């Protein structure tokens, strides 16, 4: 192996990535630590906690989502159950993006050639990328262990939860590094690596619901098999470590079988003739992956929330402040809970709507707009095509999210009367979601450099929704969030005028953005 220059590259990568690594570590640590916080605040007595734990353990949907139900009536058991699977997924995603970014993406953009022309060994770039990912996962593990130790939870188990996460991340770094050698583009490398992570999650879900055998095929299953806070055992960690060694070694062997810039799997050819007829065809083709992906995601999340069924009462416990969060209007607990669930689905949908509204910006920055607009295509028609996709995608994603809620509820309780009303409830959020998309559009038209501010608007709405009640925000601050204007269906009755007003507001903001776009320089 020729590793000359690995150190220089590694230092360069760490410099470039330091904030990103910190953000991942903060997010994953928060995922674990916040479970402890919320569980501790949720139940006023151990009896409360015991009965909630009993309800959870028998809910198959929960077990499929989170993992084997063990020691759910303890804080440590809850943290492990709620966070481990998702923590492992996040570690896998982080590894995949870090490795892709420093290998495939660099090769694709031609910067890799520049680096390799210097005094750099053949294996240095991929080794540097691997080390960045390993360091990143180490930071995640340390963050998780340290935060749980500070709670304080049992020391050995806290450390095990962090060590398992790091090892799981190392294993998935190895598979990501294999994916990068196989695929011939960053996109398909992410596709393969993402598939591995998804498969690991699904195998453990099926295993946990069934007799447990399939979970042994999944690194996430091995991580959970360490039984942190419920009879800790260390030997599954050896499995993870061995898996990491095998996958990493394999990736180096596969690397030997490919040329720089190419993949082991050749890129598939496509049609030699085009069927795209106009701007709308193109905008849909560019965004359909994102539209369908988000729609499927919201459907699943809806199903997950819905499958809590009537159990929400015992799950939420009797804590006053939690009840306040879910039942803001004073209706029944179930209606209040699902009103909040609908709003959460809508907030997630803003993620789609904003990124879709900013897609034209990406097209412009990547220099793909020039050729298009030098044809008979008018600027405003080009942009309007993307607006149409944003609006259609928002309606679709919200509709499926609402449908998921109703169907999930019906599957668990056998009561299908809520399917229609909750679908409509979810669709009523089309208005505020489009307002936020329109804010992004306006920024894009007026000051494209500042488009990332659009994400601040989303953050603001999240903060208002989650914390306005607890921290007693003044009314005018709450009023700024378009979500706060809307009736909390199904807890309250739908009110027509706020809905219409928000739609008009969205149309005006978006229209202003489109007008501004017509009058500015293209970059």
């Amino acid at each position, binding site marked *: 192996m020729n590793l000359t220059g690995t150190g220089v590259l590694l230092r360069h990568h760490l410099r470039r990535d330091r904030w990103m690594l910190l953000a991942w570590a903060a997010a994953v640590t928060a995922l674990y630590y916040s479970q402890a916080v919320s569980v501790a605040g949720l139940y006023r007595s151990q009896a409360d906690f015991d009965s909630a734990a009993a309800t959870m353990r028998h809910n198959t949907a929960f077990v499929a989502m989170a993992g084997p139900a063990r020691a759910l009536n303890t804080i440590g058991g809850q943290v492990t159950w709620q966070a481990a699977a998702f923590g492992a997924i996040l570690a896998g995603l982080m590894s995949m993006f870090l490795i892709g970014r420093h290998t495939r993406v660099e090769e*694709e953009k031609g910067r890799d050639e520049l680096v390799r022309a210097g005094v750099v060994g053949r294996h240095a770039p991929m080794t540097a990328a691997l080390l960045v990912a390993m360091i990143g996962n180490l930071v995640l593990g340390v963050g998780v262990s340290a935060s749980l130790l500070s709670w304080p939870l049992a020391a050995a188990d806290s450390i095990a939860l962090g060590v398992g996460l790091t090892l799981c991340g190392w294993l998935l770094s190895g598979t990501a590094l294999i994916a990068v050698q196989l695929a*011939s*583009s960053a*996109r398909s490398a992410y596709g393969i690596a993402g598939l591995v992570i998804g498969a690991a999650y699904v195998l453990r879900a099926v295993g946990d619901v069934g007799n447990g055998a399939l979970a042994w095929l999944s690194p996430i299953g091995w991580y959970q098999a360490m039984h942190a806070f419920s009879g800790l055992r260390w030997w599954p960690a050896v499995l993870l470590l061995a898996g990491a060694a095998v996958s990493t070694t394999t990736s180096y062997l596969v690397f030997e079988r490919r040329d720089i810039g190419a993949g082991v799997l050749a*890129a*598939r*050819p*496509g*049609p*030699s*003739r*085009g*069927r*795209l*007829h*106009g*701007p709308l*065809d*193109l905008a849909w*083709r*560019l965004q359909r992956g994102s539209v369908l992906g988000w729609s499927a995601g919201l459907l699943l999340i809806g199903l997950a929330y819905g499958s809590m069924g009537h159990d929400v009462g015992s799950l939420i416990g009797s804590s006053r402040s939690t009840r306040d969060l879910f039942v803001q209007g004073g209706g029944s607990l179930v209606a209040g809970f699902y009103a909040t669930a609908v709003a959460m689905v809508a907030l997630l949908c803003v993620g789609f709507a904003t990124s879709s509204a900013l897609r034209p910006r990406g097209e412009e920055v*990547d*220099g*793909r707009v*020039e*050729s*298009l*607009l*030098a*044809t*008979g*295509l*008018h*600027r405003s*028609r080009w942009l309007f095509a993307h607006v149409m996709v944003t609006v259609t995608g928002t309606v679709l994603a919200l509709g499926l999210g609402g449908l998921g809620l109703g169907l999930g509820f019906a599957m668990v309780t056998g009561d299908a009367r809520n399917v229609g009303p909750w679908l409509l409830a979810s669709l009523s959020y089309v208005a505020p979601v489009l307002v936020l998309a329109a804010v992004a559009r306006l920024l894009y038209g007026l000051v494209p450099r500042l488009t990332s501010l659009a994400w601040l608007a989303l953050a603001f709405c999240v903060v208002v929704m989650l914390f306005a009640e607890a921290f007693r925000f003044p009314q005018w601050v709450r009023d700024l969030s378009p979500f706060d204007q809307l009736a909390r269906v199904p807890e309250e009755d739908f009110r027509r005028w706020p809905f219409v007003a928000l739609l008009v507001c969205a149309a005006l903001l978006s229209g202003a953005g489109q007008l501004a776009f017509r*009058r*500015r*320089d*293209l970059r």
Partner: protein
Amino acid sequence: MDNVIGIAGLVKRFGSTTALDGLDLTVRRGEVHGFLGPNGAGKSTAIRVLLGLLHADAGVVRLFGGDPWRDAAALHRRLAYVPGDVNLWPNLTGGEVIDLLGRLRGGLDEVRRRRLVADFELDATKKGRSYSKGNRQKVALVAALASDVDLLVLDEPTSGLDPLMEAVFQRHVEQFRDTGGTVLLSSHVLAEVEQLCDRVSIVRAGRCVESGSLADLRHLTRTSVEAELVRPVDGLDSLAGVHDLDQDGRRVHFQVDSDELDAAIAALSRCGIRALTCAPPTLEELFLRHYGDEAPQGEPVPA
């Protein structure tokens, strides 16, 4: 209207940088017009203003007699553009892009499309992300040359093509001109412009410094000759068209006007040639020689 493109006194600033500083450019119907200038001179910026992608800060810009900022889409139906940096959609094939751009322009000539794809040896089934720079350029060139338009605007179109493909490109541009089309061809390579263009405008630091037919600019197209001879040569300095002679025993180095090249080489060969290199002067050399006095003020002057 005999002028397809008329630009006068065009100014374009980006913050504190002035990319175009009173640019003039006239392109007549039916000519191949070379738009020549070193990197950063403002060629791409001028073209982007001409296409209505950028808004001019001052000056007059006419395209087919119309205002490209106001009537961009309508005017664009009559032209095809190949940007300097062709970026394709990673998940669309070259063929899909060619057809899309063609349809947006109002249709492609099917026969010509097929011939161009064959001539440029383009694999139209590859996805955008797997094309090299040269192949991306070919996609844009095929899309442009296969459409039925009056004007081609080409921004350094051959910068990624190999010499063989450059020849194919030149053949197709000539055919386009022979059927009455007009071409604006930007380049920083003098030789390319010489091969194709009827008239040339030379731009430097956002301003047009020379404009005319190639014959007018003949003084720019000298060849630089370096030779090692069997015995010293006499009388080179008295030959017509020889400049900047630098003679050191049996080694000579000089510039010669292209139409006097024959006589100069004949004089050399009478003294026996051991080694000979002839090269067109680079654009940078030209600029140094002809416009050196206009170099930006404040540059350090060697003592």
